[in-house]
């Protein structure tokens, strides 16, 4: 029986939805799935993880309590747990946290690592991932004593496969890491996280100023959507860099991406081309995005977005 480890990400005591796609990708015949959790055991995830086919939940903790966030000690703790449970294959998300943990683990184990996978065949050790800003799809084969994979959030659809999960606590005392986390500065705006969101509504140059992004936030709140932006809007200082979708910003894979006043440069597409459905609202019929989306609305976004918000409000009232 092959054991596969999955590094699970938790936010506010909840398992992030994107993890379920990773678990789905990890499943296979004669495979035992181990979920690694480092959230300090504040919530019981047995039911939620069991629903997607996790057999064992490994709560990784320090000798006297939870391991405070430190990428180096967390990576070391996961390596120790992998060794203890005899796990040689590890999957995680290509998220902010995954980008800091998976390569640390791979580097320490001198193991091959492929990030941003959109398709995995664990039996054959092959994966597919976008390269060159999403202009090509590469098929890679990895070989090694350990193999590590990062999955692009939301790129693989989650499918339930219920089983009975068992929780095991694994305590470790990782050696001093050489780096100290002094503080975590929270961002000003909370809201739905871009890389996690099922719906993203994003604004570009057509928003005209930062103040106007308010209409996107209002609309987003009603759909449970996250608000993104193009580089043009970020460079103009209308919105913070953390909202930038694209080549030099966040890569996203939502079910629906609504681009408002975004021309649709190659660089922007690099960050959102794997979205399920792309809707473009743009006055300019010649904008690149009009020909590269699924649904184009050639109209003034200031006419369309507030109307959409009002319609969503009406629907909300009805329910």
């Amino acid at each position, binding site marked *: 029986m092959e054991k596969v480890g999955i590094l699970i990400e938790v936010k506010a005591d909840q398992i992030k939805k994107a993890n379920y796609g990773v678990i789905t990708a990890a499943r296979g015949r004669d495979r035992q799935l181990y979920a690694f959790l480092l959230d300090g055991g504040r919530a019981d995830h047995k039911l939620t993880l069991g629903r997607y086919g996790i057999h064992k939940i490994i709560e990784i903790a320090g000798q006297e309590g939870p391991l405070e*966030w430190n990428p180096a000690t967390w990576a070391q703790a996961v390596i120790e747990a992998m060794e203890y449970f005899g796990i040689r294959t590890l999957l995680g998300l*290509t*998220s*902010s*946290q995954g*980008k*800091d943990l998976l390569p640390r683990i*791979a580097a320490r184990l*001198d193991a*091959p*690592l*492929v*990030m941003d996978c959109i398709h995995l065949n664990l039996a054959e050790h092959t994966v597919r991932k*976008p*390269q*060159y*800003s*999403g*202009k*090509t*799809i*590469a*098929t*890679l084969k*990895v*070989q090694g*004593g350990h193999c590590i994979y990062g999955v692009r959030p939301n790129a693989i659809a989650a499918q339930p496969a219920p089983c009975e999960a068992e929780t095991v606590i694994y305590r470790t005392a990782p050696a001093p890491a*050489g*780096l100290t986390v*002094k*503080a*975590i*500065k*929270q*961002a000003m*705006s*909370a809201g739905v*996280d871009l890389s996690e969101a099922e719906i993203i509504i994003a604004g570009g140059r057509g928003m005209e100023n930062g103040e106007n992004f308010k209409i996107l936030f209002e609309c987003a709140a009603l*759909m449970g959507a996250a608000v993104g932006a193009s580089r043009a809007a970020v460079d103009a200082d209308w919105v913070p860099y*953390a*909202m930038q979708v694209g*080549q*030099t910003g966040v890569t996203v894979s939502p*079910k629906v991406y609504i681009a408002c006043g975004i021309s649709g440069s*190659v*660089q922007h597409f690099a960050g959102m*081309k794997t979205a399920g*459905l792309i809707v473009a609202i743009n006055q300019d019929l010649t904008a690149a995005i009009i020909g*590269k989306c*699924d*649904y*184009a*609305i050639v*109209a003034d976004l200031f006419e369309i977005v507030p*109307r*959409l918000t009002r*319609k*969503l409000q009406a*629907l909300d009232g009805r*329910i």
Partner: protein
Amino acid sequence: MQIYVCVKHVPDTAAKITVKAPNQIEEAITFIMNPYDENAIEEAVRIKKRRGDAEVIAVTLGKPAAENTLRSALAMGADRGILILTEDPPDSLVTARALTVAIEQDGTPDIIFTGKESIDNAGFQTMYRLAAALDMTVVSNVAAFALEGKRVVVECQMEGGARGVIELSLPCVIGAGKGLNKPSYPTLPAIMQARRKEVKRIALDSLRIEKPSARADILELKPAVEARRAQQLKGSAEEVVRQLIRILREEARVIE
């Protein structure tokens, strides 16, 4: 102090990528320095300007044309360059080993900067492998950097715009993020001067790297299929919004 900056020669983001069978791209296109590596060079040069005693060495691995990216780094203020030559760019396990050996043979790094990712292969891992090989600490996606004596304090971009304030000691590896600084474009005299700066050329084979047992090979590259057939929603604003709601509800099923 010696600051090494690992840079990469990559296709311009706007360039059209054509696949040449089976795992290579047509390279008769515009290449640039990986954008995040510009932030890495800029930060190293700023340290040099502040301290005066620092030497900045740009290192790259690639085909002979990668020298152009080294020259850009030199024009931005790096003192000299190291070009590890290969006709067949290897995976990141070998790349990191090659960079490690070339740096160790050249000097004693106090800080190694890289970009947080390369926009061609997007492996996100070379800086971590360098750190592991050299037994240094590493942080990536760095948006703020301060050097205080032997101590480094950085801010790393985290999810949703949060930032982790992390302290580490020298020597260390730093993966530069976009927010770290605004790279300054080199002046014409700086570009002219860069042509005369020293670039050491080393054949990858001559580094005698121990071959790793693990590997990641590209079996195949395929152009991404642009499968979207744009359909225009027509009618009055009211009608268009009604259609959009229907699409969100029935086709995408993201709203109730």
